[in-house]
């Protein structure tokens, strides 16, 4: 296990350096001039040139990357072009909103998706199953932006129960997290159902029932635990994706998360902010993947890493 962890950590470091090079180069080869995006349309060419020099964008690419890497190691991700302050600070200010939304949406996903899936599996081909299927199809097929706007119109504008948008307090968290959770909940429900059905057909389940275990114990303790493996993979990937930002949901609910920040930063060619977010989310992704792999061994003692 230890050798495995060391190997995985080493691989992770290589992955991150690769990501940083890729992000750095891609940003600089796509068309678009950061100084032009910062200055108004009516800025003279000399001002554009001067600003690009100030931003360090007139150095050769490899020198720019070298300088960048050196400062990143010191914890400095450069100055945001757009916000005129340290990129890391700009990004970190968005972390609380991103984390809140991600965790709430994930909690909803697990709390709604798993029971729905279990219900559908144990009551196969009954009304429960069909209802759960319909919900899952809706959750996966309703576009985020439509669902979000409808929820805001119904619960915000018409009923006035919840704020239509903004960040602050749990009421403002409800609609965005439901919107964000709709898709993964459906996914988790379907996945739980199918893997549980498969497992419930296994012989050891029959053995369990034969030795007189109650149905809840059979399903929840023996079947569900084994059904969790594919689920964990999916949840891990979803958390990684969501922590990188949920662009559409954030836009609809004016949620100050990282998704909208990175999209705006790309539009405005705010290289330091894009680099910071992508490198941070790549790090999160790598770490979560590692954690998920380790968790497998906890859930399934048959899995061993050497």
């Amino acid at each position: 296990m230890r050798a495995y962890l060391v190997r995985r950590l080493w691989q992770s470091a290589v992955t991150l350096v690769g990501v940083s090079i890729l992000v750095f180069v891609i940003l600089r080869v796509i068309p678009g001039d950061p100084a032009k995006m910062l200055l108004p349309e009516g800025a003279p060419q000399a001002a554009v040139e001067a600003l690009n020099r100030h931003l360090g964008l007139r150095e050769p690419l490899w020198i720019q990357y070298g300088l960048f890497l050196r400062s990143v190691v010191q914890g400095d991700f450069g100055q945001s072009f757009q916000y005129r302050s340290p990129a890391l600070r700009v990004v970190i200010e968005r972390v609380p909103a991103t984390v809140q939304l991600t965790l709430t949406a994930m909690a909803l996903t697990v709390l709604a998706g798993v029971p729905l899936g279990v219900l559908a599996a144990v009551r196969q081909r009954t009304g429960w199953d069909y209802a759960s299927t319909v919900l899952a199809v809706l959750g996966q097929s309703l576009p985020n932006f439509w669902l979000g706007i409808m929820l805001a119109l119904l619960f915000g504008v018409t009923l006035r129960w919840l704020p239509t948008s903004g960040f602050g307090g749990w009421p403002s968290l409800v609609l965005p997290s439901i919107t964000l959770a709709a898709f993964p909940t459906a996914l988790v429900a379907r996945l739980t159902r199918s893997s549980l059905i498969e497992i419930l057909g296994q012989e050891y389940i029959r053995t369990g029932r034969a030795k007189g275990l109650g149905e809840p114990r059979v399903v929840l303790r023996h079947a569900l635990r084994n059904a969790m493996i594919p689920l964990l993979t999916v949840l891990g990937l979803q958390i990684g994706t969501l922590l990188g930002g949920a662009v559409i949901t954030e836009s609809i609910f004016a949620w100050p998360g990282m998704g909208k920040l990175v999209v705006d930063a790309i539009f405005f060619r705010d290289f330091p902010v894009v680099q910071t977010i992508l490198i941070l989310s790549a790090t999160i992704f790598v770490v979560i993947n590692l954690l998920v792999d380790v968790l497998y061994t906890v859930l399934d003692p048959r899995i061993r890493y050497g």
Partner: protein
Amino acid sequence: MGAPRLSRRQFVLGSATALAAATARPRAARAQTRRGQIIAGLSERMLTLDPANHYSISSTSVLRHVYDPLLDVTNDDKFVPALAESWKPINNTTWRFVLRRGVRFHDGTPFTADSVVFTLKRVRDNTKLIKSFVYQDIEDVRKDDDVTVTVTTKRPFGSLPAHLTMLGMLPATAGGNEDAFFTKPVGTGPFRFTSWTHGDHVELEANPGYWRASVPKVDKLTFRFIPELSTRAAALRAGEIHVIDRVWPDMVSTLKATSGIKVHDVPAVEAQRWHFQLARDAGKDPRVRKAVSLAIDRNTIIKELLLGYARPVVSPVPPGLIGHTNLGQKPYDPDRARAILKQAGHQNLTLDFVLMKDLYPKQLEIAQAVAAMLGDVGIKVNIRNLEIATAREQRTAGNYDLFFSGWAHMPHDPDWYFGQWFTKAGAEKMTRFNDPRVEQLIAEGRVPDPKVRQQKYEEIQKILWEDEPEIWPYYSVAIYAVSDKLRNFEARRDYYVLLHEVGIA
């Protein structure tokens, strides 16, 4: 029956009522001047607290409440005193400003000539600041005494007062540690900065010592940043906020149908201007430009696509600004357009029409309508709807024939527009415009004398109107929606949300 007894509850209630009555008078008196809170929903997120380091409309809407400029500009384009009580040109390259006395920054330090000297020298010398390029013509800023400042310029700078409406004055002490200063900035404005939750909102509180009597009208001002129009509108309709900016024409009817909401619109200081690439074959030929102009039915665009929320253009400079003149509307005459093209021998002409994605209301629909109109006279149009940075890059490289764009005269003065788009140096990497006559007139129009400026600008526009290096399809209209609880709201021509004198019921 004995005398009625006073229960403990009645006693407490009675005392509270008496106390309230005793304190009611001063509270009522205060309430007349200042009361309540206004929450505004802005279309862009604020970028910085430094008034010299952005040209963002949302940032200005917020910061204009914290910092005062030397001069202000009214909605009918009059330049009026703010921190400067008066100003006048001494000669073509010298301006003198007499400052208001007795004004204090939010931290109590007095506003003096030192603040002006610091602010102006800072924006000129620190070329990293976004507004720096505008002030490069300043030669020197001199303090004559505590309330008099003389600014000398390298060449005539007639639009200096107009630009100064966009520059908030800072205390000279800000220079010590700018980073620290701009985390908790102080200005002389009607509101003090309280907090900024990045990406979400800014909170301001009334400055009780503001130099203008009975301003502001509310205790607290909050700006929320809600980039999506539908979200902004929903928040207004739900009663969460009181005013939104940048409403698009097709949203107006929904908002008007909501009780408690009023829609305000005003002709903006912006003219749409679709510029030709004048070094490419198509744009180079004045006959092609003329034909394109004749083939576009501007009134249909205004009426059908913008639902009347635009005005026909009669000169490149919008009404109200210095230089505006009436040159008559451009005619719509597809037959003549066809004849001109035939005469010029242009068959199978194709134009690349480049758009900056999602920047202007209804722009794609408008471009499609224009493509159909031009198709009608035999010109094929390739619409290239590009992401903004890419579109601008394409323009610099000259890879376009016609470029969809607008120009908002934010300082309420056209000098910037002319200097940028119709001088060789300005247009070099843009439209490739080059006309020594126009260049000469622009230089002559930079003097402070408004009569001379008006005359020069009229001459420039006559040349441009004939030459048509751009298509001016319409003047834009600024649309806002507000709660009917707001008192005294004024829809600004420059797209700012300014709430100095706005109260709430």
